[in-house]
């Protein structure tokens, strides 16, 4: 739990292997997860003895526990109205992962709206390194991305394949029906035209604050504080519960100290 420099996560093991398929050409690849979620999750414990809690599935009618063998899946079609599916029924229509990333065409990477981006994976060469290297170099030169589809577990995704930091990356995409059209938002329908003077001022402010994108400047302060607390607790230190002062209160205190100093001088 290093508190010094934030390290990027190390690669984990491959979760999928198959081929990038472009027409008749196949490039064998392995798929590594690229994103490591950093949200903290806590286990629920029994306060009295510290043991983890267990979940039971209880029937809402007779309050009795139900075993897995007695469970079916239901899709709610109306209030308390369900269409029932047996396990085999769902099994039968599951998309087969054909172990292929089907590339349909190549597009300019920058032409994809970022709102469609879902999850990213690293594609590593699987045995045939020449084919991989060839595709990588060509995509890099052109700044293009292959667009196609992949089946991961049971879901079929649109996906992009492109070069990043000397590797091929696969990014799954959202379907259009998963992305809300902002034109449907009520508040946006009758947006007033700003007055030109204010626009000029806003543009000046933005220009003054313009710079290069640098993600390393952003920190999750909640995560850092949790890590700090975990460390303390592991060392057996007593943790004092203290409500954090908001950033703006801190700023006010700084200004207040300065003013008090000035007033004392008088």
């Amino acid at each position, binding site marked *: 739990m290093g508190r010094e420099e934030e390290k990027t996560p190390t690669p984990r093991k491959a979760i999928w292997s198959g081929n990038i398929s472009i027409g008749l050409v196949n490039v064998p690849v392995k798929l590594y997860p690229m994103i490591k979620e950093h949200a903290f999750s806590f286990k629920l414990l029994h306060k009295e003895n510290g043991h983890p809690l267990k979940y039971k599935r209880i029937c809402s009618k007779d309050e009795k526990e139900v075993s897995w063998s007695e469970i079916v899946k239901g899709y709610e079609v109306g209030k308390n109205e369900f269409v029932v599916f047996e396990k085999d029924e769902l099994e039968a229509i599951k998309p087969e992962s054909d172990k292929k990333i089907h590339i349909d065409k190549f597009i300019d990477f920058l032409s994809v709206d970022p709102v469609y981006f879902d999850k990213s994976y690293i594609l590593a060469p699987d045995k045939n390194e020449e084919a991989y290297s060839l595709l990588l170099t060509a995509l890099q030169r052109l700044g293009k991305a292959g667009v196609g589809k992949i089946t991961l577990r049971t879901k079929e995704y649109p996906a992009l394949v492109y070069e990043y930091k000397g590797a091929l990356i696969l990014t799954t995409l959202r379907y259009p029906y998963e992305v809300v059209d902002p034109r449907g938002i009520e508040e946006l329908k009758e947006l007033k035209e700003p007055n030109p003077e204010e626009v000029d001022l806003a543009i000046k402010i933005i220009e003054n604050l313009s710079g290069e994108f640098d993600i390393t400047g952003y920190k999750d302060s909640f995560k850092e504080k949790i890590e700090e607390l975990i460390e303390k607790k592991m060392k057996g230190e007593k943790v004092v519960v203290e409500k954090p002062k908001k950033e*703006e209160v801190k700023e*006010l205190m700084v*200004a*207040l100290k300065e003013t*008090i100093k000035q*007033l004392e001088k008088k």
Partner: protein
Amino acid sequence: MGELTRVEFTNLDKILYPDNGIKKSQIIEYYIKIAPRMLNYLQDRAVVTKRFPDGIQEEGFYEKDAPKEKPSWIQTFPRYSKTTKKTINYIVCNSLDALLWLANIAAIEINVMLSRIYSYENPELVLFDLDPEPPADFANAVEVALLLREVLEDIGLKSYVKTSGKKGLHVVIPVYPKYTFKQTRVFAYSIGRYLAKKSDLVVSELKQSKDPGKVFIDYLQNSLGKTMICPYSLRATKYAPVSTPLEWKELKKTLRPEKLNIFNVPKRKKDPWEGILKENQKLEVN
């Protein structure tokens, strides 16, 4: 904030200037920063505030009588009012904490009386409130203020100028607290009349105050119980302008009063009115 102030700040995130997204925390921060200058003008004066607890887009309300929830350490000045037949407890904002308490109750506009509480009926300031009526504008008010300064100088009086924070200007002369309000009012009125004769731009009678394209020299604020917006008070209009004391040489027709606001007034190097309260003058012309 414990050891630094007795004021318990609340709802710091509340946006009080919706057009500019200015939050209550920023208003408090402004008053903290400006306090070393502003407290000079609040010292021993009864204040009347205009409060905007729900932001400046709402009406707001004037408050003369100190609210019940006022902490015990806030100084007040009780004064029996013949018109309302009750005693009004005016707030006297003599400390940093009192100023911050006012900021926290969203008393955005802070007005002060022209007299001090210990010589309540004898003003220490004579106020000329220059109020341009459209199409006359701020630049016209500047023109009149410069003219007024000259006239006052000719009779040996030193004057000071500040923006009202809105479209007008305030010119004041510090005097010994020995005149009555009636005397200072008559004085201001006669100067106004003189200027009205000299310049087509100027009007001096209340009934002319809405004459289009004219600048009215309002002398009526020189009355017992009347107030003016305190130097360095914020105004409850777009851009959070400040009623800002100026050097005479800064007063130009191109000056934009809204550019003297919550963000840049605290950065101004010095207070152009410094010393004004020690420069009492006599109104009698020698």
